[in-house]
């Protein structure tokens, strides 16, 4: 078949463009990291406020969560990229001018707000999932709200919220591909798209894109699973970090792409090597 005979040639084109692709990849990694950090801070802050017994804190937090969770990321980006600058164009004396024209920063903010609002729900839900007996024990010991939250409730909720946060971070990674609509920001998807247009060879680019996003997602997953194993170990559940190196499949985020789900256990067996081939429950 002609299609398969041409494969090497297709990939040659992709390799020739590797500088641009790597630059795009670096942008995607930065968007994912900075967006993830901002989303995390927003998720924790809004999640704690939304779980507060004080209505003056809870209700504004709820409004923010519902708003940023409900709006489309693409529309939010359009507002930040194209509507916001109009205001500054007409009023050049307004402050934060540099910020408004920094499209990368706006992209990070959009990702952080959108996914942070989702994360806030995960944080709030995890806090309410901590056993009521734990809350009652802290009351019986007269702990203040910040004290019980910091020392007792949050460390337990942390183990519960990590799978959801892991899920959201992978969503954010893939959501960062929307950056290709942003002016002056060329992320990995944007570079792939650039490469597709003049060469008319779509297959290799699409394939490279598939694999690269999958590997990035896999790295995030492994990192978050390590955090989760550590958090659970601290609560006296599950052995230790060793568990993530075992070949038994762990709960994979349900909304992860099918490719990630089927390939995951195989890849996880890799770094473990033969010495770690005991099943997850194996005590050593």
């Amino acid at each position: 078949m002609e299609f398969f005979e041409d494969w090497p040639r297709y990939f040659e084109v992709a390799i020739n463009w590797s500088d641009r692709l790597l630059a795009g990849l670096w942008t995607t990694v930065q968007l994912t990291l900075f967006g993830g950090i901002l989303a995390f801070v927003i998720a924790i802050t809004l999640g704690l406020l939304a779980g507060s017994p004080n209505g003056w804190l809870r209700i504004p937090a709820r409004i923010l969560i519902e708003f940023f969770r409900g709006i489309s990321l693409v529309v939010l980006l359009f507002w930040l990229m194209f509507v916001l600058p109009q205001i500054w164009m007409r009023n050049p004396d307004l402050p934060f001018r540099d910020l408004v024209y920094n499209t990368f920063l706006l992209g990070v903010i959009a990702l952080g707000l959108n996914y942070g609002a989702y994360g806030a729900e995960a944080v709030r839900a995890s806090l309410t999932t901590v056993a009521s007996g734990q809350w009652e024990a802290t009351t019986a010991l007269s702990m203040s709200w910040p004290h019980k939250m910091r020392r007792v409730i949050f460390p337990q909720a942390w183990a519960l919220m990590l799978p959801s946060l892991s899920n959201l971070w992978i969503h954010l990674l893939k959501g960062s591909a929307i950056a290709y609509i942003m002016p002056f920001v060329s992320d990995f998807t944007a570079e792939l798209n650039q490469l597709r247009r003049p060469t008319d060879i779509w297959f290799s680019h699409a394939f490279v894109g598939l694999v690269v996003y999958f590997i990035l997602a896999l790295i995030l997953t492994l990192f978050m699973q390590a955090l989760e194993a550590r958090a659970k170990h601290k609560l006296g559940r599950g052995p230790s970090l060793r568990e993530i190196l075992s070949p038994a499949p762990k709960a994979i985020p349900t909304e992860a792409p099918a490719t990630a789900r089927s390939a995951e256990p195989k890849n996880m067996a890799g770094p473990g090597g033969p010495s770690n081939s005991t099943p997850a429950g194996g005590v050593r």
Partner: protein
Amino acid sequence: MPTPTDAASTQPAEAASFSASDNPVIKFVDVEKRFGDNIVLKDLNFEVAQGERVTLIGPSGSGKTTILRLVMTLEELTGGYIYIDGQPLTHENRDGKRVPVSKKDQKKLRTRIGMVFQQFNLFPNMTVLQNIIEAPIHVLGQSQKDAIAKAHSLLEQVGLPDKADAHPSSLSGGQQQRVAIARALAMDPEILLLDEVTSALDPEVVDDVLNILRQVADTTNVTMLIVTHEMGFARDVSHKVMMFDGGHVVEEGHPDKIFTNPEQERTRKFLSAVLGH
């Protein structure tokens, strides 16, 4: 379990001296608790004197545990007043108006109250020692050194001197409950609330836990409000037993009298059911 008739009375003679005229440590005035339309407690009035140990008995759903939870402020009081050492715990009566007390006053009052739960509720993210010293250091402001020394002596008292660095998940239920008792005692409570503390335990370790509580009762002057199904224990340690049914006090009195010669038919029926004769 010792039956009411054969148990030698260990009641201290001064039991009779507890009376309403003593300054009550806990005072319920017209207490009402409802969950929605469901009235659990109504027009409840009783007093517990300094150092007095009162056991609440009765069928499940009679409101016993709710009383403990109201004292610990785990439930919201929907009517009436609770006084701790003469001070209003949740609401005060100001010229006939029911006014909530300040959160600050409530918190201050609450540090005098300790509670041990049916499900232990140890903090799984902390070691045994950290569980015990957390509140004394951060709530009462004790020094780390004092709190640790006290924790070790309490662990000795509950028979777990070598478990300070263990995690709760590695302990048996009986051991966890003993740590929970040590944790409550580390706060030096004036009032100790015991909510069915042996109900979740294997039968063979129930006596261990009860013996520790007997010892606490013998060696300290802490006021205790106890909900239990262990009638032998109730008879040994309490100065007064209150029989509840449907949110009302059916009968109250000295344990010897309640357990051997109850006045009310309802009490007699309940006791014969739980004692199995």
